[in-house]
């Protein structure tokens, strides 16, 4: 044992904290080292001095002062003791109510604004559909319904088809008395969305008076996106005629990214066409990621930190609409539908 170790253990030795073996070594070193003996004596004197410190009497008014502080600071009396237990619960509950209240307020306000916008867009789409039907009702090739209102349009169309079917049944019963043809799911989607929309816009009565168009095979491709420009290009993938017209636009034709988007979407469209029946393709999150990536490459939509975000939370894709600049999350995107009808 050397002097450094002795100095380190000196305090414990004074307190009797050294185990017997170390204490023996400690004492053995002291027997041979006058310097360490002097250090130990000085240390023992220091400890004795500190331990000689007497306890000072606290102020006489300590108790009244404590009482005064307790009374002043929320008065936690004994009778109110149970409240101390419930205070955190009440605080949490109050916080939740506040958060939910604020959230509901803004959500309602947000939804109200969105609903107004959707209704406005819906009106525009229906008017377009009406015009399309008026111009060339049987040959209507396709249409674009972009945004959340597309879902509403779809529902209205279904409702209109159902109404029309009911009226057709009633007419058939009145005319021939036979059993009505069953409306299939395909009927709801196939061939007559424009007419159905027009019926809804015109009103149930007028729509019912319109003769039914022959059922045509159609494909409804539901793609989650908010980008109208992207939808336009998706449509081009289906509509050769319009694509030819758009050929004049160099930016669309020269872009290699366009071809990639077209390839992906056209593949889906081909599959849909081959099935020759109504198909609604709702892109899964993974597919949506692919689509977003394609659109990002194309430059029509910018995806902010797409790969990183999706790698961590696939359901939380964050994208920024290149047109509006608004942040969009996948949860929103998945409820945004583009309905493309191809006869």
């Amino acid at each position, binding site marked *: 044992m050397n002097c450094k170790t002795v*100095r*380190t253990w*000196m*305090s*414990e030795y004074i*307190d009797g*904290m050294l185990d017997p073996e170390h204490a023996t070594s400690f004492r053995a070193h002291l027997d041979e080292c006058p310097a360490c003996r002097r250090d130990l004596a*000085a*240390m023992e*004197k*220091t*400890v*004795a*001095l*500190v*331990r*000689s*410190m*007497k*306890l*000072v*009497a*606290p*102020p006489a008014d*300590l*108790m009244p*002062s*404590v009482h005064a*502080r*307790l009374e002043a*600071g*929320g008065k*936690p*009396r*004994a*009778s109110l*003791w149970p409240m*101390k*237990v419930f205070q955190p619960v009440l605080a949490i509950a109050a916080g939740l109510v506040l958060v939910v209240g604020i959230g509901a307020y803004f959500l309602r306000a947000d939804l109200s604004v969105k609903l107004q916008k959707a209704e406005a867009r819906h009106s525009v789409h229906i008017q377009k559909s009406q015009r399309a039907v008026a111009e060339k009702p049987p040959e209507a090739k396709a249409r674009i319904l972009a945004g959340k209102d597309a879902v509403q349009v779809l529902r209205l169309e279904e409702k209109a088809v159902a109404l029309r079917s009911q009226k057709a049944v009633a007419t058939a019963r009145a005319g021939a008395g036979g059993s009505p043809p069953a409306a299939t799911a395909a009927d709801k989607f196939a061939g007559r969305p424009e007419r159905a929309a027009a019926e809804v816009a015109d009103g149930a009565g007028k729509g019912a008076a319109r003769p039914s168009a022959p059922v045509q095979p159609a494909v409804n491709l539901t793609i989650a996106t908010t980008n109208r420009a992207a939808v336009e290009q998706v449509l081009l993938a289906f509509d050769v005629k319009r694509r030819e017209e758009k050929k004049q636009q160099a930016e669309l034709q020269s872009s290699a990214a366009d071809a990639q988007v077209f390839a992906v979407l056209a593949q889906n469209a081909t599959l849909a066409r081959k099935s020759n029946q109504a198909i609604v393709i709702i892109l899964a999150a993974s597919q949506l990621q692919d689509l977003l990536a394609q659109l990002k490459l194309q430059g029509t939509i910018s995806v902010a930190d797409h790969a990183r975000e999706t790698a961590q939370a696939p359901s939380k894709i964050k994208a920024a609409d290149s047109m509006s600049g608004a942040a969009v999350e996948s949860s929103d995107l998945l409820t945004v539908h583009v309905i493309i009808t191809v006869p």
Partner: protein
Amino acid sequence: MSNHINRHKSDDGALTMDHQVVDELVSQIKEGKRTAFDDLVRLFQKPIFNLAFRMLNNYEAAQDVTQEVFVKVFRSLSQFKGESLFSTWLYAIAVNTCRNQRNAAQRKSLVEFSGGECAESGQGGKDLMVDPAPGPDTHVERNETRQAIQNVIAGLSEEFATAIILRDIQDMSYEQIAEVMGCSLGTVKSRISRARWMVREQLETRYPDLKP
């Protein structure tokens, strides 16, 4: 209640408690008995006040901190689950409150005094809490030796001052000090040892003629 509390000074002057009595008082306070809290204050006011006084070297500040400690105890007693001795829990609150007070005083002193003695290694805040020239009306140690020791201890950084006060003035065991300070036994041993060496060196340097 206080008349039957087993409270006595040990041979070296430290205060010891009957833990069963303390536990009973704590239970009564939790049941809403306000007089039990008063008994608890009476039982611990002296050691807690002395801890604060030695840590802060200021009678009024120690009084204020002691009040604050008991108010905290009253308001947070429901959080005390009995997993440690009540005295350990109480001392931990007291040490933290003293630490906050020292830090606040240090910041205030640093603002108020641009000069002064610089803190040495291991002695952060040296002399910031020390009243350099206490007047006749202030509550200070009347004995020159004890006042010198008081000044030196109060000049140590918080962890070393706490360690040596709890050990040599409050007569706590190493294990209880570790619990109060929230550190390992080895750390406590080291802090006590270093604190004693620092006190010794300071006393020899600043008070060479000091007699025990």
